[in-house]
């Protein structure tokens, strides 16, 4: 399709010094009719167009419209764009229908989720009754069910190649399973079972090597070929609830323990690196897949903390909006946003550099959300909750699914940019920010606002009535870090 940029060039004026075509005398020799030769001196200005400028090459082409970009012909650019932005914002809210599907089939609360590293359609989930299910997202069906453990399935993770996956459970075992189901007539059996001495509470697989890490009393690094850990690291004596490999610098691990600390390990040197103690317990952490040194911790004090692992004494950002303990967090594969699941029956999406969430998802039936994952194409979010369902959400609430035509895409982009441009205007801002919330969360927010306000007031009063400098102003980011242990 040829599409030249036709600027405001009007029809061409041709100066014709001779007879115009229609007037031509077919036989001037006869000269009985028609104008005399004197007419040949007449100057006629004629309009002529080049058909290249307005004829389509094929039928499928769009009609070419000549445009004149003279600004005087298109007045009121700011007001017009403002109205467009306002409309775009309203439509975004009207079309915001993020909920896609609910995958039901578990007979107990969903305790853990795992993504398939090679396939977008496959999702693994472990429940509180020891059952593991493999789901097909396009069909929204469970394709396989395994009774993997007795008691909870505490952790589940897929191998980096996607051929097998590992589970740990309350029955002190680590099991490796094949991703494909057993053949006809075969029993559903794990490839490998390791019986440990203590309960394992979490598992994560290395991103490149046949190595996985479990946590419980200590962090163990296992070679897949061996039944005893290659090395085990501990620092302090408390149960560790989650361990995660860094996806970029793969030898670094992060773990969080129930004595309120987050510990970083170096697998190559088999030593812990540093420990940071927060106000309350951290439930899990997640590494940023695009920024090697950033990770986010989901904390019991309703907040999430993004840390730079080289400077643990102050988080880079404190993300607050939840009104109950945050149970899980997962980064978008683009590394620009993350999603958090909370005990307050909602999930929220935070931009990495913002302290407030940009989106909150909830449904009437969704109970405490225990685990959440962002799919690896960064378009969807899955969350598993207490009431045995896995829910599938759009990451962008008002996004249109399916194939978009190029014009649709362009319009979309334009609307996005308009919203961005006019985001500070009060009407646009208000409409874009508006979210419906269940009563429980709403009232909680109000309550917490009052509490925060009164705390702030008290501190101010204290500062006012004490010696200057004796009650220093502590920034929100510094407030929650108790200590950093080397």
């Amino acid at each position: 399709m040829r599409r030249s940029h036709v600027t405001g060039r009007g029809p061409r004026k041709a100066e014709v010094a001779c007879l115009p075509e229609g007037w031509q005398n077919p036989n001037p020799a006869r000269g009985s009719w028609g104008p005399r030769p004197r007419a040949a001196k007449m100057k006629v200005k004629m309009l002529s167009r080049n058909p290249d400028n307005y004829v389509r090459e094929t039928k499928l082409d769009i009609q070419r419209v000549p445009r004149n970009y003279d600004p005087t012909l298109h007045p009121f650019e700011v007001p017009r764009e403002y109205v467009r932005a306002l409309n775009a914002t309203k439509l975004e809210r009207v079309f915001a229908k993020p909920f896609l599907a609910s995958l039901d089939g578990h007979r107990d609360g969903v305790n853990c989720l795992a993504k398939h590293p090679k396939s977008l359609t496959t999702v693994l989930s472990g429940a509180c009754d020891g059952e593991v299910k493999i789901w097909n997202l396009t069909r929204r069906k469970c394709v396989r069910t395994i009774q993997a453990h007795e008691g909870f399935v505490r952790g589940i993770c897929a191998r980096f190649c996607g051929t097998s996956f590992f589970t740990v459970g309350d029955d002190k075992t680590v099991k490796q399973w094949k991703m494909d189901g057993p053949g006809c007539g075969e029993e559903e059996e794990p490839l490998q079972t390791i019986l440990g001495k203590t309960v394992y509470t979490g598992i994560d697989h290395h991103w490149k090597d046949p190595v996985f890490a479990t946590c419980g009393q200590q962090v163990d690094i296992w070679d897949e070929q061996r039944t005893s850990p290659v090395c085990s690291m501990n620092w302090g004596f408390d149960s560790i609830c989650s361990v995660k490999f860094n996806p970029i610098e793969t030898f670094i691990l992060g773990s969080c323990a129930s004595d309120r600390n987050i510990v970083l390990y170096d697998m190559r040197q088999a030593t812990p690196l540093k420990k940071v103690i927060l106000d309350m317990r951290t439930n899990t952490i997640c590494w940023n897949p695009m920024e090697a040194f950033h990770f986010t911790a989901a904390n019991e004090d309703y907040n999430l903390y993004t840390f730079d692992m080289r400077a643990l004494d102050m988080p880079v950002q404190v993300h607050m909006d939840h009104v109950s303990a945050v149970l899980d967090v997962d980064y978008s594969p683009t590394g620009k946003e993350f999603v958090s699941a909370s005990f307050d029956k909602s999930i929220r999406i935070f931009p990495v550099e913002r302290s407030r969430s940009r989106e909150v998802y909830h449904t009437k039936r969704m109970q405490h959300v225990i685990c959440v994952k962002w799919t690896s194409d960064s378009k969807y979010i899955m969350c598993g909750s207490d009431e045995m369902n896995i829910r599938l959400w759009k990451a962008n609430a008002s996004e249109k699914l399916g194939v978009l035509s190029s014009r649709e895409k362009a319009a979309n982009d334009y609307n996005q940019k308009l919203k961005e441009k006019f985001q500070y205007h009060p009407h646009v801002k208000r409409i874009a920010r508006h979210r419906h919330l269940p009563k429980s969360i709403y009232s909680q927010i109000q309550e917490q606002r009052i509490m925060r306000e009164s705390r702030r007031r008290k501190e101010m009063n204290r500062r006012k009535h004490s010696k200057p400098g004796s009650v220093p102003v502590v920034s929100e980011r510094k407030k929650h870090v108790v200590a950093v242990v080397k």
Partner: protein
Amino acid sequence: MHATKAAKGLLALSQQEELVDLPTNYPLSASEDEGDGDGERKHQKLLEAIGSLSGKNRWKSAERSEASLKVSEFNVSSEGSGEKLALSDLLEPVKPSSSLTAVKKQLSRVKSKKTLDLPLNKGEVERIHREVAFSKTSQILSKWDSVVQKNREAEQLVFPLEKEPASFAPIEQVFLDWKARTPLEQEVFNLLHKNKQPVTDPLLTPVEKASLRAMSLEEAKIRRAELQRARALQSYYEARARRMKKIKSKKYHKIVKKGKAKKAIKDFEQLRKVDPNAALEELEKIEKARMMERMSLKHQNSGKWAKSKAIMAKYDLEARQAMQEQLAKNKELTQKLQVVSESEEEGGAEEEEALVPDAVNEAQMNADGPNPWMLRTCNRDAQEDEVQAGSNELPEPVAHEFSENEGNEKPEAEEDVLMKEFEERRSLRKRSKLNQDAKPVGGQDSATKEVLSELKALSQKLSKDNRLSKKPKESPAKTVLLVQEEEPAPEEEEPLLLQRPERVQTLEELEELGKEDCLPNKELPGAAVEGEQVRRKPQEELKGKKKEQMISLQKLLTTRTPSVTSVAVPTTVEEQEDEVERDQKQMIKEAFAGDDVIKEFLKEKRETIQANKPKDLDLTLPGWGEWGGMDLKPSAKKRRRFLIKAPEGPPRKDRNLPNVIINEKRNIHAAAHQVRVLPYPFTHHQQFERTIQNPIGSTWNTQRAFQKLTAPKVVTKAGHIIKPIKAEDVGYQSSPRSDLSVMQSNPKRRSKHQKQLKKSSID
């Protein structure tokens, strides 16, 4: 003490016993000598022990004849076991004998060697290990800093990040493989090769290039000569300048300066004749220089020189003269130029600027229509000038560039011409106004008198009103309260989402949502007006009382607060106060010596009132129904007929406030749509305005520019898995060895872990 001594003695004894070849007449050590009683007993014991050695029951249990704290598990008495064996003890007996020098040497060598320190305890060792490992790891991680920075600032990121290897081979390689097959191809090929025609980018043959590069000999010579000449001239000029600079005579410099000034004036005159535009520019430059001079403190009598001269002026005529000169200069510089306010727009904009930093608002300034956007800002160029003057600026939005690129150069040129014309006209107008100002002095006076009489009438009317409606008066304290309440409480960080328990689903509801926000906004101005009225009342009252007196604004503005004299206060203090007041007055007088502030203010107010009055609409068309022509004007009758009188607007809010101008151009309906505070990343309102003013839609931009302007920041492809960033993606080398192999080849740690493992298996 005793115990240790005894132990030493015993040791010595045992040594004696063991070293058989010691001479028997070896004198007893001093320590032994001292402990008599003890020694006796020990001797006995030793003898017994020796005796028992030879006997049958060699391992006879030792009898305990004394109370001892230290009872060994084995039967040997452990007396003295807590003591350390010092080397000196061993050496002592050896001293006298010369035959044992070798042993002595050996022993002394041992003595000179130092023992190793105690190893650190386990916890500390581990801590050191951790610290070292941490610093190592953070060093490894810091290589990602630049990548992270780059990705965060990127205009557009396309995921997945890993790129397909580019399959483009350089065209030379493609040609190498290609061979001419058909006869036509061969012919073309031959032709190309004959001329050595390059196939790739540089389209000139080597010969052509060489010929282009070459320069004829004559040309080169001429060029060289030129260069030489230029260099020589430069050096002469420099030398001259240096010489001139060294001349110390003040008179000479004065003359030079004067000459220069004269020359400049001459030049300017000439320029004005030849090129008026350039002359205007020149004039502007001069004006600017004057302004700069005015701004500086050079002629303000505050310098060291000026002060010294002021002291000397009494006695020295010359100094007095110099000072006068300087004063004259100062006066000339600080003389205020009459600047005609161009239009109401500028003044309004400036007033509003501080309150509402927004392009939108400025646009609204011009029109009172319900839509803030109804009128475009027509004083854009002026704004642009301001922007250029503005301090730090964000990088200009891309739209600007595009509009320039895509061929708006022509209109711009036209704009320039227009601008110049405008400027000329403006300057002309200024000159004429100045002349007018200079001529009639009395005219202005009459105008002020008019205003004064008007004000008087107004105030009388008001006082009557007041008497008619005797409302309970509100205390000024209340107004203060009101004002305080209006101030918004300091807010903490605003949440991104506005959460509420009811759902908004339809467009209409969203519409409502928008309106809700502007409600408090509407209330605000109302409250302000109320406050204003309340504040106004006492003033009116005051006026009412003095209705007989002639109210002069001059007095109103400069009245001094009536000082209450009490008997208790000594009069001297009052005198002092008076003096202070006089001083102050003097100061103020001096400060505003040149300009009449009050008159100016009045004039300004009159102008704003005039400008804001609704204007009549004249619909007469000259030439319709009567003769038309160059000097003919439509008849008065016709004009009267087609003149549409503008309706009288609402009374001005500041009509009763002589020293206040209330801007009535702010439209509260539009204000609801406007940004009130400068949003965060922007540092100046002009930056923000510019982002708003540049349209991004395809209506105003070409297709290409539109695409570039609306390119999203993050692009993801549906159905593609985005993997975490890898070192190879950004051009770093990842370590070839796997983490596992590195870990296993770490010998020290491994042994430790094996130990640990063993230990755990034992457990």
